[in-house]
């Protein structure tokens, strides 16, 4: 399976769509334990990314992702702008100059993205953040490396792990971000950042389905 720059462009358009569709839901989740702006901020940021895509459509994957990260940092604000922006920029570093990306390279890029989020946010697992959704998915991808399992099947299990990780934030006590101010009262609510990470993971999985279908057809 090879992921092309065209796949990545469609992935980013799909992220913008899915975030827009779930904008109010994300904002509502944020109203429970934060400051009620997560959906509107990400929607604004990914809309800006989509408007920039035509300028990088003929560029390599690294350039596309770097532009995405810079645009998110410049337009989202809040904590999610620097966090998602850093994630895309770190992934871009791993994929710099590449016209196509294989599954191993994709996993390395996702690892770098997670590391970037952890460094920028000074957060670890179990603190009721987006890390709790992303990290279990990457665990699955890493564990399957070097096995015979088709990458799409691995990715499907990884997406399920991200979803489970997102749901696992519900009973968690927040110790990072604005939700931490609530103390015990943060328990019982799903983390909005973990939720937006799940939606991005969904779009990523759809991209892999598309890339796999094309690999089969050729």
């Amino acid at each position: 399976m090879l992921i092309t720059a065209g796949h990545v462009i469609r992935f980013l358009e799909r992220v913008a769509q899915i975030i827009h569709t779930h904008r109010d839901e994300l904002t509502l989740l944020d109203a429970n334990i934060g400051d009620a702006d997560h959906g509107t901020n990400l929607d604004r940021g990914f809309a800006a990314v989509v408007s920039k895509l035509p300028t990088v459509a003929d560029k390599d994957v690294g350039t596309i992702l770097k532009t995405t990260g810079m645009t998110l940092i410049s337009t989202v604000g809040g904590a999610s702008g620097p966090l998602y922006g850093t994630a895309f920029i770190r992934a871009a570093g791993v994929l710099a100059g590449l016209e196509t990306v294989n599954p191993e390279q994709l996993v390395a890029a996702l690892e770098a993205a997670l590391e970037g989020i952890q460094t920028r946010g000074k957060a670890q697992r179990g603190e009721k953040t987006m890390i709790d959704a992303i990290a279990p998915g990457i665990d699955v991808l890493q564990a399957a490396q070097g096995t015979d399992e088709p990458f799409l099947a691995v990715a499907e299990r990884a997406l399920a792990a991200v979803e489970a990780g997102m749901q696992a934030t519900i009973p968690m006590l927040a110790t990072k971000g604005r939700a931490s101010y609530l103390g015990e009262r943060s328990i019982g609510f799903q983390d909005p950042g973990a939720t937006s990470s799940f939606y991005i993971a969904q779009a990523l999985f759809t991209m892999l389905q598309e890339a796999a279908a094309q690999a089969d057809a050729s």
Partner: protein
Amino acid sequence: MKKLINAVEDVVKDSLAGMAAAHSDLIKVHYDPDFVVRADAPIAGKVGIISGGGSGHEPMHGGFVGKGMLDAACPGAVFTSPVPDQMLAATKAVNGGAGVLHIVKNYTGDVMNFELAAELAQAEGIEVATVVVNDDVAVKDSTWTAGRRGVGTTVLLEKIVGAAAEGGANLADCTRIATKVNDHGRSMGMALTSCVVPANGKPTFELGENEMEIGIGIHGEPGRTRMELKSAREIVEMMAEAILTDLPFASGDNVLAFVNGMGGTPLIELYIVYNELAKLCADEGITIARHLIGNYITSLEMAGASITLLKLDDELTRLWDAPVHTPALRWGA
């Protein structure tokens, strides 16, 4: 929910345009990236003082740009931290060669975005120092939270450090004074109603007719405890006790007492709060040497108030009294 606006997406820009129209003698407004800057910036040899944060707290921060206070303010979307492009552009615009101090309220987003901007400015050869304000005693300061929020002390800090910079203090001295203000200031807030973020159109949280929220922040984020509404006297007692025991303030201290409205509380009620606070301080042997009463760090239309006490010494008192001329705060100039 009714709002006196043109369009939700134009709230921040329309309001900035109004400030520019009203105060062209004091400030200029730069768009894309958005920031409010002193009309006479940059001032050669003077440390530049910058702050910023989400909009919805007016007059903070844009209303505090002017002589003797801020050189620039970076407004984000409502309750959303500004982005690094804004702080970078503002830092360049106020850099008079003596370095720039960033005053950042301790919120995860604000801290990260200012951190990115400071890295970028330093890469361009501008000396940047940062002071993070974290004075909210409602939040436990531990490894189990993102740390205390920056609230009322921010206003006092911007005034005091602004005066120091205006008087020729260097970047190290401005940073020292800012740190001293933060170390000696403590705040606590409460809410009677929620606020309504324009983009959401409905209250961020619900409070019952007879309920109040103690330990509220300035973004409609719920506080730590919800309880039955009490008298102003009892509410002030609760808030003051949390503040006084935290520093701790002691008999013989001189303080600046700041009673701040959250945006939807009339001045008649703020003076009731001040009266209770003044009696309590007198009982404790604490002298209110200076005071500030009004809506300075707000949370849109939220009804409620916050109390800030700042322990004063001669240096802080002198800097507080120094002339200031901004859209929202003016004396001696």
